[in-house]
């Protein structure tokens, strides 16, 4: 049986006076790549620029230090999984499971991202400029001190916010795919029992799981709450706030914090 393609390349990179380390990921297996990232962080790097990334998984997994990691190329699945403080910036598309169980910190994707983004995230922020795939923001949760935030500039496919238990999900419909259809796919908010979901633009009410959630138009107070988030989005991706506000926003909120309570035997 073949061993995983290990490469010996990628010796520990230099850290310059500004605390920047550059890593060339070409041909490097993800294990080695993450070793290099941790190593430069240990040696004091504050910014890490990784170039020629192509499909390496788990980049920046579990990083607790407040460093910034810039990724050039398409990172593999589970980017920034379990991250706890780092800022990870992707300058291309990202694949599936970005920010899996994110704890704190921020992930910024300048392209599209795949399925299952922000799965079970319990803190931190994810900003995606483009579209995202299926099952985004499912099982998001929050604590009194920590509220996760996931903002999608384009559209989201089916099962957005499924079983969402907390935090905020925002979908802005600013890409071409929103002009071709609705901003969110089917089964949105199924089993949702906490947090809130905000949608901008055209929504098909039959796509919203109204057995679990209420769909209503955002009022002035809600929009005022959203404004700081939208400002942040505009700064990151160079959008005009007025253009974003020039369209209707919808709010999806759960009816109950225990939608499945009736499905279990009563607790004595």
């Amino acid at each position: 049986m073949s061993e995983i393609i290990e490469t010996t390349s990628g010796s520990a990179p230099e850290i310059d006076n500004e605390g920047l380390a550059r890593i060339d990921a070409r041909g490097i297996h993800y294990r080695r790549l993450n070793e290099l990232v941790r190593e430069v962080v240990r040696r004091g790097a504050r910014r890490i620029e990784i170039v020629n990334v192509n499909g390496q998984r788990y980049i920046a997994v579990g990083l607790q230090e407040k460093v910034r990691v810039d990724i050039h190329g398409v990172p593999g699945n589970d980017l920034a999984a379990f991250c706890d403080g780092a800022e990870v910036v992707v300058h291309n598309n990202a694949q599936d499971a970005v920010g899996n169980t994110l704890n704190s910190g921020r992930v910024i994707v300048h392209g599209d991202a795949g399925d299952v983004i922000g799965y079970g995230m319990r803190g931190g922020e994810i900003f995606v400029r483009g579209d995202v795939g299926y099952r985004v923001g499912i099982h998001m949760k929050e604590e009194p001190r920590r509220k996760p935030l996931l903002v999608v500039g384009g559209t989201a496919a089916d099962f957005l916010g499924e079983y969402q238990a907390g935090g905020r999900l925002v979908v802005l419909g600013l890409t071409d795919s929103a002009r071709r259809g609705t901003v969110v796919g089917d089964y949105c908010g199924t089993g949702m029992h906490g947090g809130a979901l905000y949608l901008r633009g055209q929504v098909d009410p039959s796509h919203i799981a109204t057995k679990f959630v209420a769909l209503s138009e955002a009022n002035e107070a809600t929009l005022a709450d959203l404004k700081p988030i939208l400002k942040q989005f505009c700064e990151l991706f160079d959008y005009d706030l007025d253009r974003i506000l020039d369209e209707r926003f919808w709010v999806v909120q759960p009816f109950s914090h225990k939608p499945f309570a009736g499905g279990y035997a009563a607790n004595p």
Partner: protein
Amino acid sequence: MLFRSKYNERDRGACGLFGWMSRKGRRQNGEGVIEAIANMHERGNGLGGGFAAYGIYPEWRDHYCFHVMYGNEEAKDRTEDLLGQRFEVAHQEEIPHQPHPAITNEPLLWRYFLNSRSLAEGVDTQEYVVSAVMDINAGIHEACVFSSGKNMGAFKAVGYPEDVGKFFMLDQYEAYIWTAHARFPTNSQAWWGGAHPFCLLDFSVVHNGEISSYGINRRYLETFGYKCTLFTDTEVMVYLFDLLVRKHRLPLEVACDVLAAPFWKDIDAEVDEEQKALRTALRQVYASAMVNGPFAIILGFGNGMLGLNDRIKLRPMVAAENGDELYISSEEAAIHVLCAEPERVWMPKAGQPVVGYLEDGA
């Protein structure tokens, strides 16, 4: 059984798929596709790798080519007797391969170019070929026909696809469609014949997922004479395409509506009455051909390639186009191995096929 012996190693992962085609029929060798599927190494666990290649036997383009694996000489003798009785065997040879440290338990690997023009008049040639494949796979112990199309072939083994590709020296073949698979077996044992692709005539299927409806699909297919002998759920997928597209003459896209059938609530909401009637009829007539469970597949056929997801997209699939090239992959990064900047990259929607056809005259 030598080549059906169990491989017990288990590791976490998920299957990987990759497909490339040139709509203009421009051929390239297998090196690039090997590199692309290897980029998703983590998706497999070394218990199966394989490739389908179209356009590789231009000098035998009118002949059916059987790729066959044997566990022993007796199986080979019996199979060759059967082939000799039913066909004119124009040429036969060992499938070229080279020793590879990671590829073990190799069966005997042979290919046969069968002249279909010698058959009696009035014989449905394709049906005749399918019967021969079924009779060998079900009737001859330790023999497995693993591809049976024209000007195409499958290459597969227990191992990682990059090792399987080197074992079969796929840099020596030029194809206008390549599909590739990295296997992570979940519900069935690993053996050479259980590696993907699964093929019948010109159809080949590589699959990521589990077919929960395998039992229903299998019993349905058996009523049409298909014999499911390969110990793996994916087998039914290729026979379903053969049944729906070849025998029942459904357009490919309609066959996809049978396999990844729309939900009744979506049929009810359809405003186009003709579509509504068609989809209702398909669900009623082909209830037992619906494929339930998570899947992403790439189907190769003589003049094209198709990608399809289950109706709620429980397995990943990304597609890209660049010039006349179509790419379908489990992960976008694998596409960039062959094409740094595709003109278009997108995530196909659940249950909606992505199809590339060869251009006329290609």
